[in-house]
């Protein structure tokens, strides 16, 4: 991917709030525009990622800012919604169709299980229409097929909560112990409450711009978006909500990562910092393998080495990940991008990854879709 830069980022903290999605989205968008030094009417196109709100949701968000007359398009791809918006925006800039695209992700999810994940009626009525069940199956396979243990799953959550202490945008900013995780309520064994992320509320935004336009506007040293790879279900993939899968199934995330590495012209060894889809603790360990950070079977060893913790060789989820930030579905991917850009600018304070120059973000969503992005200084 060429000539696409991230000229600004913005975020509304993730958590629970007493105002609506329009306010959340507008806040993140304005935060992003101020960061870039633009006003809303200077943006060619707005893409708004959201899963659960009403019709014309993006329009309702942008109307809080200004009536610009510019096109607004809503994007939905479950947990990969804002990753999809980013990939679409980047393609439109690369193609020359637009010179600036504001991507906004926003969500205000109800408490409890995520509903309407694409399950068939028979799955819902017979109790098979519940997301953690599918994550628990993956977790069970991980424990069966690798050296990973329930203590390792707990350690992922402990690590990410430790990271989140330093992130003012995270929902849970308190350290937790391995014992607290392992004694938390079972949801779908082996997954427990503190091994799962909480759906919540929040918003994030990124302003994509052609590099020529950024130079013209005097935006110096922007972060480059060098890959935004988006894939959907292939012949042998499996994820929520499919009731069956091939014995020799493949991984959407792995395919998205390979595509992203090709687009960026780099390999996993070049990555300094990762924000990945830790919907549950096992999903982070699986992502180590799928993103090429370790060989299959070495997920637990990588975690135990400390390399994926802040201060390690390649920290993962220094923002606290979804386990600590919570997951506002439509905003999670852009939340990762906000963190990566903040890190690459060297502005992350106590959670700063020293010398970070290459960042990778990864999301994975129901309905079978995954997006992997690469940002570089």
């Amino acid at each position, binding site marked *: 991917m060429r000539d696409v830069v991230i000229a600004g980022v913005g975020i509304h903290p993730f958590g629970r709030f007493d105002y609506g999605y329009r306010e959340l989205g507008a806040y993140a968008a304005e935060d992003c525009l101020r960061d870039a030094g633009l006003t809303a009417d200077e943006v060619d196109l707005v893409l708004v990622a959201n899963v659960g709100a009403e019709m014309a949701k993006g329009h309702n968000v942008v109307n809080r800012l200004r009536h610009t007359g510019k096109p607004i398009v809503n994007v939905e791809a479950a947990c990969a919604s804002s990753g999809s918006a980013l990939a679409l925006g980047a393609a439109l800039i690369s193609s020359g169709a637009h010179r600036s695209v504001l991507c906004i992700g926003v969500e205000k999810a109800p408490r*409890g*299980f995520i*509903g309407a994940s694409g399950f*068939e009626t*028979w799955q*819902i*009525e*017979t*109790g*098979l*229409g*519940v997301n953690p*069940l*599918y994550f*628990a*199956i993956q977790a*069970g*396979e991980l424990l*069966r097929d690798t050296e990973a243990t329930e203590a390792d799953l707990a350690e992922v959550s402990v690590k990410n909560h430790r990271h989140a202490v330093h992130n003012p945008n995270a929902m849970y900013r308190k350290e937790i112990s391995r014992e607290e995780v392992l004694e938390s*309520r*079972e*949801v*779908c*064994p*082996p*997954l427990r409450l503190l091994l799962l992320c909480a759906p919540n509320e929040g918003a994030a935004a990124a302003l994509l711009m052609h590099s020529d336009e950024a130079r013209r506007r005097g935006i110096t040293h922007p972060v480059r978006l060098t890959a935004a790879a988006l894939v959907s279900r292939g*012949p*042998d993939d499996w994820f929520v909500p499919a*009731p*069956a*899968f*091939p*014995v*020799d199934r493949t991984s959407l995330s792995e395919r998205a990562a390979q595509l992203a590495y090709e687009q960026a012209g780099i390999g996993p060894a070049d990555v300094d910092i990762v924000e990945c889809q830790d919907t549950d603790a096992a999903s982070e360990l699986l992502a180590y393998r799928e993103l090429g950070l370790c060989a299959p079977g070495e997920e637990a060893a990588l975690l135990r080495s400390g390399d994926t913790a802040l201060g390690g060789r390649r920290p993962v989820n220094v923002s606290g990940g979804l386990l600590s930030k919570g997951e506002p579905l439509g905003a999670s991917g852009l939340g990762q991008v906000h963190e990566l850009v903040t890190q690459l600018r060297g502005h992350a304070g106590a959670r700063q990854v020293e010398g970070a120059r290459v960042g990778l973000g990864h999301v994975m969503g129901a309905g079978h879709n995954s997006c992997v992005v690469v940002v570089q200084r």
Partner: protein
Amino acid sequence: MTSLEPADLLAWPELFLTAEPGAPTALLAGGCTGCRRTAFPRAARCPACGAATRPTELRGPAVLDTCTAVLSTPPGALVEAPYEVGVARFPAARICVIGLLTERIEPGTMVDVVVHEPYPGGRTFGFRPVGAADRDLAPGPRTTPSAERLL
């Protein structure tokens, strides 16, 4: 590539052969005439390669690969938590299917596909240990065959 009528896409396929609760049944799958993959539920055209499928029945014994449980009743569910769920692997068809378990079953156990009544009047498919029907009728210790002994 065979032609697919748009109307073929309107009907949701049957999942299993109807029978009384507890009776052995078969999952109604589609076997691809091109790439040889198996799809469940059955589709008129192979989702992987687009070739025509022929009706295929998935019967036990299958291997229970993994299992978990749902401990809180999800929204919309007619079955009440807690209940057990597992992944059954059908080696010949090279497909794994997620379904309710009739009881707690250890991974590696051989299972049959049976008609399951998870709530009064409800009918779905479920996975039950091979031999459990006989076991339930006979006195003595409850044991279920392992995959190693039956495969």
